[in-house]
Protein backbone atom coordinates (compact mmCIF):
# COMPACT_ATOMS: atom_id res chain seq x y z
CA UNK A 1 0.00 0.00 0.00
CA UNK A 2 1.31 3.46 0.80
CA UNK A 3 4.77 2.50 1.85
CA UNK A 4 6.33 5.24 -0.19
CA UNK A 5 4.44 7.98 1.58
CA UNK A 6 7.23 9.41 3.67
CA UNK A 7 9.60 10.48 0.95
CA UNK A 8 10.37 13.87 -0.50
CA UNK A 9 10.22 17.10 1.43
CA UNK A 10 13.00 19.33 2.59
CA UNK A 11 16.13 17.25 3.16
CA UNK A 12 16.94 19.15 6.34
CA UNK A 13 13.62 18.40 7.96
CA UNK A 14 12.99 15.39 10.08
CA UNK A 15 9.63 14.02 10.95
CA UNK A 16 8.20 16.22 13.69
CA UNK A 17 6.81 13.22 15.50
CA UNK A 18 10.29 11.83 15.95
CA UNK A 19 11.35 14.97 17.78
CA UNK A 20 8.16 15.13 19.82
CA UNK A 21 8.41 11.48 20.86
CA UNK A 22 12.09 11.71 21.71
CA UNK A 23 11.45 14.77 23.82
CA UNK A 24 8.57 13.01 25.54
CA UNK A 25 10.76 10.03 26.37
CA UNK A 26 13.34 12.39 27.83
CA UNK A 27 10.81 14.18 30.05
CA UNK A 28 9.44 10.85 31.26
CA UNK A 29 12.97 9.75 32.11
CA UNK A 30 13.68 12.98 33.99
CA UNK A 31 10.49 12.64 36.00
CA UNK A 32 11.60 9.16 36.95
CA UNK A 33 15.07 10.39 37.86
CA UNK A 34 14.13 13.39 39.98
CA UNK A 35 10.64 12.93 41.45
CA UNK A 36 10.35 16.67 41.87
CA UNK A 37 8.87 18.91 39.18
CA UNK A 38 11.02 21.89 40.02
CA UNK A 39 14.18 19.90 39.50
CA UNK A 40 12.87 18.53 36.22
CA UNK A 41 12.14 22.09 35.07
CA UNK A 42 15.62 23.14 36.02
CA UNK A 43 17.21 20.24 34.21
CA UNK A 44 15.16 20.84 31.06
CA UNK A 45 16.14 24.49 31.13
CA UNK A 46 19.78 23.56 31.48
CA UNK A 47 19.65 21.14 28.57
CA UNK A 48 17.84 23.75 26.51
CA UNK A 49 20.51 26.28 27.36
CA UNK A 50 23.22 23.94 26.09
CA UNK A 51 21.25 23.42 22.90
CA UNK A 52 20.64 27.15 22.45
CA UNK A 53 24.31 27.97 22.76
CA UNK A 54 24.99 25.69 19.80
CA UNK A 55 21.83 26.40 17.91
CA UNK A 56 22.60 30.10 17.54
CA UNK A 57 25.68 29.23 15.49
CA UNK A 58 23.59 27.14 13.14
CA UNK A 59 20.96 29.87 12.99
CA UNK A 60 23.36 32.71 12.20
CA UNK A 61 25.08 30.64 9.55
CA UNK A 62 21.86 29.76 7.81
CA UNK A 63 19.60 32.76 8.29
CA UNK A 64 22.14 35.32 7.14
CA UNK A 65 20.98 37.88 9.67
CA UNK A 66 22.83 40.93 10.85
CA UNK A 67 22.76 42.33 14.33
CA UNK A 68 19.42 43.44 15.76
CA UNK A 69 19.21 47.11 16.66
CA UNK A 70 16.62 46.80 19.37
CA UNK A 71 14.62 44.26 21.30
CA UNK A 72 11.63 44.64 19.00
CA UNK A 73 13.67 43.54 16.07
CA UNK A 74 14.98 40.61 18.10
CA UNK A 75 11.42 39.59 18.88
CA UNK A 76 10.53 39.62 15.20
CA UNK A 77 13.52 37.53 14.23
CA UNK A 78 12.79 34.97 16.93
CA UNK A 79 9.15 34.62 16.01
CA UNK A 80 9.27 34.89 12.23
CA UNK A 81 12.62 33.39 11.34
CA UNK A 82 13.92 31.17 14.13
CA UNK A 83 10.68 29.46 15.16
CA UNK A 84 9.77 29.05 11.51
CA UNK A 85 13.11 27.49 10.68
CA UNK A 86 13.32 25.05 13.55
CA UNK A 87 9.75 24.16 14.41
CA UNK A 88 7.83 25.25 11.33
CA UNK A 89 5.51 27.63 13.11
CA UNK A 90 5.25 31.34 13.70
CA UNK A 91 4.24 32.54 17.15
CA UNK A 92 2.54 35.91 17.59
CA UNK A 93 4.53 38.63 19.32
CA UNK A 94 2.41 40.67 21.71
CA UNK A 95 1.93 42.16 25.18
CA UNK A 96 4.83 44.60 24.97
CA UNK A 97 5.70 46.33 28.19
CA UNK A 98 5.68 50.14 28.16
CA UNK A 99 9.46 50.26 28.35
CA UNK A 100 9.79 47.88 25.42
CA UNK A 101 11.92 45.43 27.36
CA UNK A 102 9.37 42.65 27.75
CA UNK A 103 7.15 40.76 25.35
CA UNK A 104 5.27 37.51 24.95
CA UNK A 105 5.36 34.83 22.31
CA UNK A 106 1.93 33.32 21.82
CA UNK A 107 1.85 29.78 20.48
CA UNK A 108 -1.43 28.35 19.37
CA UNK A 109 -0.05 24.89 19.04
CA UNK A 110 3.06 23.55 20.62
CA UNK A 111 4.78 20.80 18.65
CA UNK A 112 6.48 19.48 21.77
CA UNK A 113 3.17 18.63 23.39
CA UNK A 114 1.47 16.97 20.46
CA UNK A 115 0.74 13.63 22.14
CA UNK A 116 0.99 14.78 25.72
CA UNK A 117 -1.37 14.85 28.62
CA UNK A 118 -0.08 15.89 32.00
CA UNK A 119 -0.94 13.35 34.66
CA UNK A 120 -2.33 14.79 37.88
CA UNK A 121 0.20 15.64 40.52
CA UNK A 122 2.53 17.45 38.16
CA UNK A 123 1.13 20.95 38.41
CA UNK A 124 4.52 22.55 38.72
CA UNK A 125 6.01 20.84 35.72
CA UNK A 126 6.66 23.11 32.77
CA UNK A 127 6.65 20.40 30.16
CA UNK A 128 8.20 22.50 27.39
CA UNK A 129 10.73 24.22 29.61
CA UNK A 130 13.47 23.17 27.18
CA UNK A 131 12.33 26.01 24.91
CA UNK A 132 13.02 28.63 27.59
CA UNK A 133 16.53 27.33 27.94
CA UNK A 134 17.08 27.33 24.19
CA UNK A 135 15.97 30.96 23.88
CA UNK A 136 18.04 32.06 26.86
CA UNK A 137 21.16 30.25 25.68
CA UNK A 138 20.90 31.46 22.11
CA UNK A 139 20.33 35.09 23.11
CA UNK A 140 23.17 35.00 25.58
CA UNK A 141 25.54 34.19 22.73
CA UNK A 142 24.51 37.42 21.01
CA UNK A 143 25.16 39.44 24.16
CA UNK A 144 21.67 39.61 25.51
CA UNK A 145 20.83 38.60 29.03
CA UNK A 146 17.16 37.62 28.91
CA UNK A 147 14.75 35.95 31.32
CA UNK A 148 12.46 33.43 29.68
CA UNK A 149 9.52 31.72 31.35
CA UNK A 150 6.15 30.15 30.66
CA UNK A 151 3.16 32.24 31.68
CA UNK A 152 0.40 30.15 30.14
CA UNK A 153 0.43 26.57 28.96
CA UNK A 154 -2.25 24.71 27.05
CA UNK A 155 -1.24 21.55 28.91
CA UNK A 156 -2.42 23.19 32.10
CA UNK A 157 -5.80 24.16 30.68
CA UNK A 158 -4.98 27.61 29.27
CA UNK A 159 -6.24 28.51 25.81
CA UNK A 160 -2.86 29.38 24.50
CA UNK A 161 0.80 28.82 25.31
CA UNK A 162 2.56 32.02 26.27
CA UNK A 163 6.30 32.45 26.69
CA UNK A 164 7.42 35.68 28.34
CA UNK A 165 10.79 37.18 27.50
CA UNK A 166 12.31 39.93 29.62
CA UNK A 167 15.42 41.80 28.58
CA UNK A 168 17.80 42.35 31.48
CA UNK A 169 20.96 43.83 30.09
CA UNK A 170 23.50 43.79 27.34
CA UNK A 171 26.49 41.61 28.04
CA UNK A 172 29.27 43.96 27.09
CA UNK A 173 32.46 42.18 27.99
CA UNK A 174 31.82 39.31 25.61
CA UNK A 175 31.99 41.40 22.43
CA UNK A 176 34.58 39.90 20.12
CA UNK A 177 37.59 41.98 19.14
CA UNK A 178 37.08 44.15 16.09
CA UNK A 179 33.35 44.76 16.55
CA UNK A 180 31.46 47.62 18.13
Amino acid at each position, binding site marked *: *MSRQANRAG*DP*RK*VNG*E*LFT*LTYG*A*LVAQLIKDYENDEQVNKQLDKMGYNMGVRLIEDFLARANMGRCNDFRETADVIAKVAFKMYLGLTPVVSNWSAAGDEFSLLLESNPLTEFVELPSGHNNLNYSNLMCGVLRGALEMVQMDVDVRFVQDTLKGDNITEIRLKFNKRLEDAVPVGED
Partner: protein
Amino acid sequence: MADEVIFEFLHMEIVDHIHKESSNEEKEQGISKLEALGFRVGQSLIERLTKECSRFKDELDTMKFLCKDLWNLVYKKQIDNLRTNHQGVYVLQDNRFKFLVQMSTGKQYMESAPKYLAFPCGMIRGALSNLGINCIVTAEVSAMPACKFQIQIQRS
Protein backbone atom coordinates in the same frame (compact mmCIF):
# COMPACT_ATOMS: atom_id res chain seq x y z
CA MET B 1 8.08 19.14 10.78
CA ALA B 2 11.08 19.92 12.88
CA ASP B 3 14.55 20.76 11.74
CA GLU B 4 17.06 17.94 11.91
CA VAL B 5 19.52 20.08 13.83
CA ILE B 6 17.31 20.33 16.87
CA PHE B 7 16.77 16.59 16.89
CA GLU B 8 20.50 16.02 16.75
CA PHE B 9 21.19 18.55 19.48
CA LEU B 10 18.47 17.07 21.61
CA HIS B 11 19.98 13.64 21.20
CA MET B 12 23.40 14.99 22.18
CA GLU B 13 21.95 16.57 25.29
CA ILE B 14 20.15 13.36 26.24
CA VAL B 15 23.37 11.38 25.87
CA ASP B 16 25.29 13.99 27.82
CA HIS B 17 22.74 14.17 30.61
CA ILE B 18 22.40 10.43 31.10
CA HIS B 19 26.13 9.95 30.83
CA LYS B 20 26.75 12.52 33.56
CA GLU B 21 24.08 11.06 35.81
CA SER B 22 25.62 7.62 35.75
CA SER B 23 29.27 8.60 35.79
CA ASN B 24 29.72 7.59 39.42
CA GLU B 25 28.12 4.22 39.01
CA GLU B 26 28.75 1.90 36.15
CA LYS B 27 28.75 3.22 32.62
CA GLU B 28 26.76 0.18 31.55
CA GLN B 29 23.73 1.53 33.29
CA GLY B 30 23.81 4.76 31.33
CA ILE B 31 23.97 2.82 28.09
CA SER B 32 20.97 0.70 29.02
CA LYS B 33 19.01 3.78 30.04
CA LEU B 34 19.67 5.34 26.65
CA GLU B 35 18.69 2.09 25.01
CA ALA B 36 15.43 2.05 26.97
CA LEU B 37 14.68 5.61 25.86
CA GLY B 38 15.26 4.62 22.26
CA PHE B 39 13.11 1.54 22.69
CA ARG B 40 10.19 3.67 23.75
CA VAL B 41 10.61 6.10 20.88
CA GLY B 42 10.92 3.23 18.39
CA GLN B 43 7.74 1.65 19.66
CA SER B 44 5.62 4.76 19.25
CA LEU B 45 7.26 5.77 16.01
CA ILE B 46 6.58 2.48 14.25
CA GLU B 47 3.01 2.60 15.40
CA ARG B 48 2.53 5.93 13.66
CA LEU B 49 4.53 4.90 10.62
CA THR B 50 2.80 1.63 9.83
CA LYS B 51 -0.77 2.66 10.40
CA GLU B 52 -1.58 2.55 6.70
CA CYS B 53 0.68 -0.32 5.71
CA SER B 54 -0.49 -3.72 4.68
CA ARG B 55 0.70 -6.67 6.73
CA PHE B 56 4.30 -7.71 6.20
CA LYS B 57 4.80 -10.99 4.37
CA ASP B 58 7.65 -12.29 6.46
CA GLU B 59 10.58 -11.33 8.62
CA LEU B 60 12.71 -10.21 5.69
CA ASP B 61 9.93 -7.97 4.47
CA THR B 62 9.80 -6.35 7.90
CA MET B 63 13.55 -5.81 7.84
CA LYS B 64 13.34 -4.19 4.43
CA PHE B 65 10.71 -1.84 5.74
CA LEU B 66 13.03 -0.96 8.59
CA CYS B 67 15.94 -0.30 6.26
CA LYS B 68 13.97 1.80 3.85
CA ASP B 69 11.10 3.57 5.51
CA LEU B 70 12.12 3.83 9.12
CA TRP B 71 15.67 4.80 8.22
CA ASN B 72 14.40 7.36 5.78
CA LEU B 73 12.14 8.85 8.38
CA VAL B 74 14.75 9.14 11.05
CA TYR B 75 18.04 9.56 9.19
CA LYS B 76 16.92 10.80 5.78
CA LYS B 77 18.61 7.96 3.94
CA GLN B 78 18.33 4.24 3.45
CA ILE B 79 20.52 1.61 4.98
CA ASP B 80 23.44 1.00 2.64
CA ASN B 81 23.66 -2.72 3.05
CA LEU B 82 21.46 -5.43 4.53
CA ARG B 83 22.80 -8.91 5.10
CA THR B 84 21.34 -11.96 6.71
CA ASN B 85 22.37 -15.54 7.37
CA HIS B 86 18.71 -16.61 7.07
CA GLN B 87 18.86 -17.93 10.60
CA GLY B 88 17.71 -14.89 12.44
CA VAL B 89 20.77 -12.68 12.24
CA TYR B 90 20.60 -9.48 10.23
CA VAL B 91 23.36 -6.95 9.74
CA LEU B 92 22.44 -3.44 8.73
CA GLN B 93 25.26 -1.30 7.53
CA ASP B 94 25.14 2.47 7.31
CA ASN B 95 28.24 4.01 5.74
CA ARG B 96 27.48 7.49 6.91
CA PHE B 97 25.59 7.22 10.15
CA LYS B 98 24.08 10.59 11.01
CA PHE B 99 25.01 10.75 14.66
CA LEU B 100 28.65 10.01 13.83
CA VAL B 101 29.16 12.01 10.65
CA GLN B 102 30.03 15.26 12.43
CA MET B 103 32.30 13.53 14.88
CA SER B 104 35.16 12.02 12.97
CA THR B 105 36.25 10.13 9.91
CA GLY B 106 38.50 7.48 11.29
CA LYS B 107 39.50 6.14 14.63
CA GLN B 108 39.40 9.34 16.65
CA TYR B 109 36.78 9.46 19.43
CA MET B 110 36.11 5.75 19.06
CA GLU B 111 35.66 5.39 22.79
CA SER B 112 32.65 7.69 22.77
CA ALA B 113 30.89 5.95 19.89
CA PRO B 114 28.93 3.44 22.03
CA LYS B 115 26.99 6.06 23.92
CA TYR B 116 25.83 7.67 20.71
CA LEU B 117 24.67 4.33 19.35
CA ALA B 118 22.66 3.10 22.32
CA PHE B 119 19.65 5.22 21.49
CA PRO B 120 19.50 4.08 17.82
CA CYS B 121 19.89 0.44 18.88
CA GLY B 122 16.99 0.82 21.25
CA MET B 123 14.94 2.45 18.57
CA ILE B 124 15.43 -0.51 16.23
CA ARG B 125 14.57 -2.95 18.98
CA GLY B 126 11.47 -0.97 19.93
CA ALA B 127 10.27 -0.78 16.35
CA LEU B 128 10.74 -4.51 15.80
CA SER B 129 9.17 -5.34 19.12
CA ASN B 130 5.97 -3.58 18.11
CA LEU B 131 6.01 -5.55 14.88
CA GLY B 132 6.09 -8.76 16.85
CA ILE B 133 9.78 -9.56 16.64
CA ASN B 134 11.82 -10.00 19.79
CA CYS B 135 15.49 -9.35 19.26
CA ILE B 136 18.79 -8.14 20.57
CA VAL B 137 20.36 -5.22 18.75
CA THR B 138 24.01 -4.32 19.01
CA ALA B 139 26.08 -1.78 17.14
CA GLU B 140 29.63 -2.02 15.95
CA VAL B 141 31.92 0.68 14.63
CA SER B 142 35.26 -0.04 13.04
CA ALA B 143 35.86 3.38 11.55
CA MET B 144 33.57 6.35 11.84
CA PRO B 145 31.20 7.35 10.42
CA ALA B 146 30.35 3.87 9.17
CA CYS B 147 28.39 1.71 11.54
CA LYS B 148 26.91 -1.78 11.61
CA PHE B 149 23.83 -2.77 13.53
CA GLN B 150 23.44 -6.44 14.26
CA ILE B 151 19.97 -7.73 14.92
CA GLN B 152 19.69 -11.12 16.51
CA ILE B 153 16.21 -12.49 16.58
CA GLN B 154 15.15 -14.31 19.72
CA ARG B 155 12.88 -17.24 19.10
CA SER B 156 11.05 -18.61 22.05
